[in-house]
């Protein structure tokens, strides 16, 4: 299963709720302001890193670069381009786009 989050965790609780509802082995893709959740050393980073032992986290590279945080992304988060985004949605039977 793929979960998609496009809101900053510092503004909305979408990522927090998503992580608490993502079953082991699922994928979480951060894009738009969701990529702010991928910043190393933030108050949110620890929570995301602990979730990463059971789920795979992806971030959309164009959004990461646009926001100037490309060198701050937590180790282990996989950067994908738009094609990778499409592949993730195609490879997962169920997709939940959190608002």
């Amino acid at each position, binding site marked *: 299963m793929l979960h998609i989050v496009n809101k900053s965790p510092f503004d909305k609780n979408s990522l927090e709720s998503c992580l608490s*509802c*993502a*079953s082991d082995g699922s994928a979480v893709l951060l894009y738009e302001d969701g990529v702010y959740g991928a910043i190393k050393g933030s108050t949110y980073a620890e929570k995301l890193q602990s979730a990463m032992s059971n789920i795979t986290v992806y971030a959309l590279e164009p959004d990461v670069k646009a926001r100037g945080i490309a060198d701050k992304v937590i180790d282990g988060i996989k950067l994908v381009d738009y094609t990778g985004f499409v592949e993730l949605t195609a490879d997962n039977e169920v997709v*939940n786009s959190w*608002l």
Partner: protein
Amino acid sequence: MSSVIKQFLYVNRKAPYGTVYALESLEVVLIGAAFEQDVRLMFMDDGVFQITKGQETTDIGMKNFSPTFGALGDYDVKYMYVCKQSLEERGLTVDDLMDLKWEDEDDDWAEKDSIILVDRAEIKSLMTDADVVLSF
């Protein structure tokens, strides 16, 4: 009409009147039900406020759409999952929610509770088990 029946899980996370998400979700739920799909609702985070008892919207000039949830049973919508933790965080219990029912035609039309309290672990499997998840 359609031979393929999919299980649709509508995840509601917004309070009812501050934004239009809750009302829009309900519209889509009704469409799914009209197409005779297996439609289920989940309420978590502020979404639990959508189904509280005693909503009275006259003075804000908006339609009170909460009674519509009571009609969903007639559209064969049987399961409304409510996140226990979200209720607790907001000082609510199941007694603060509307008494939503559906009638079981396989059990002499007995009235059954639509609301099912679930924890996060149960939510995980409900999401994984659905064919389609729609978030509002």
